């Protein structure tokens, strides 16, 4: 392995970018592929599948053997709002392999007693996200119902390109939200990425059921995210 490749690989991992190290087993030649890249001699589908599953393995074709070592950052969920749905989500997310943190400036909601063992910050999202910015492998879930709290992180998530952006609220609430987000400079295409009403439509009723529908929605967004040349 060339040291230049190793340095680029480590740099990408530190920056929480998904990257695949492709090694030609027959001659030891190594290359890096980022999401959307194509590499000569390797089918695009093989790279896409590896990025989506996160699984490393050999790809053999026409007598050539390539080893794909897949490095996908650990996905995170940032929840805006220390509500009942968040309590249920905080229990389920780690089981599905997600790190989770909750942000809510309302100190009556964001109490350690209600969220034992959960990373919880009782502060305004704009202050917290300044220090811990969102990224492509973070899902943003806004569930406070309060535009003063939800809007800033929603705009931030859309502009950052978070793989999932969801917002709680009825269609009527969401229509008003769309107007505000447009004023904040979000494009129609960005706004169309918001999952609203939040979660998969499974008829969820209780906070726990809504948490399941949100988590399933997030997993779908992660495992079926668009990857392809030029995507």
């Amino acid at each position: 392995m060339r040291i230049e490749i190793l340095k680029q690989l480590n740099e990408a991992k530190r920056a929480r970018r998904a990257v695949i190290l492709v090694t030609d087993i027959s001659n030891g030649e190594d290359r890096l592929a980022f999401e959307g890249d194509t590499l000569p001699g390797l089918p695009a589908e093989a790279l896409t599948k590896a990025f989506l599953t996160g699984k490393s393995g050999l790809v053999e074709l026409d007598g050539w053997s390539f080893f794909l070592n897949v490095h996908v950052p650990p996905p995170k969920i940032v929840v805006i709002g220390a509500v009942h749905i968040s309590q249920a989500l905080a229990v389920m997310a780690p089981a599905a392999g997600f790190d989770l943190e909750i942000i809510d400036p309302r100190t009556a909601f964001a109490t350690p007693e209600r969220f034992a063992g959960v990373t919880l910050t009782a502060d305004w999202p704009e202050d917290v996200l300044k220090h811990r910015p969102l990224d492509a492998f973070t899902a943003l879930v806004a569930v406070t119902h309060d535009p003063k709290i939800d809007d800033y992180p929603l705009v931030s998530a859309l502009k950052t390109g978070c793989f999932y952006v969801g917002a709680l609220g009825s269609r009527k609430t969401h229509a008003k939200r769309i107007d505000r987000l447009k004023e904040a400079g979000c494009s129609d295409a960005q706004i169309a990425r918001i999952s609203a009403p939040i979660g998969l439509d499974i008829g969820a009723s209780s906070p726990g059921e809504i948490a399941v529908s949100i988590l399933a929605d997030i997993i779908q967004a992660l495992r079926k995210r668009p990857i392809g040349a030029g995507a």
Partner: protein
Amino acid sequence: MNDMAGLDDPLSIAEGWKAEGRDVALATVIETWGSAPRPVGSHLVIDGEGNFHGSVSGGCVEGAVITEAMDVIGSGSPRMLEFGVADETAWRVGLSCGGRIRVYVEKVA
């Protein structure tokens, strides 16, 4: 999936050791059959003195991999190693768990 990005990660260690001027080889699990203890993509990093960090088998075959890695550092040519109960070659070290693994060893140059 290799999620490790911290300072304890073998790939970060490999880069650090190179920066210190050490000779470095990297061993990678590229294929497993049966109950292999470490997943595909796992790394062991070895320097020219035989120091190592990481794991390709949870301790079963590391000694043999380190010996081979020292040769790879000397020659500069990568090698493919295979370990396991069904392996009839001279490289019959055996995984106590009954699995088989293939390990690719290369020099970081």
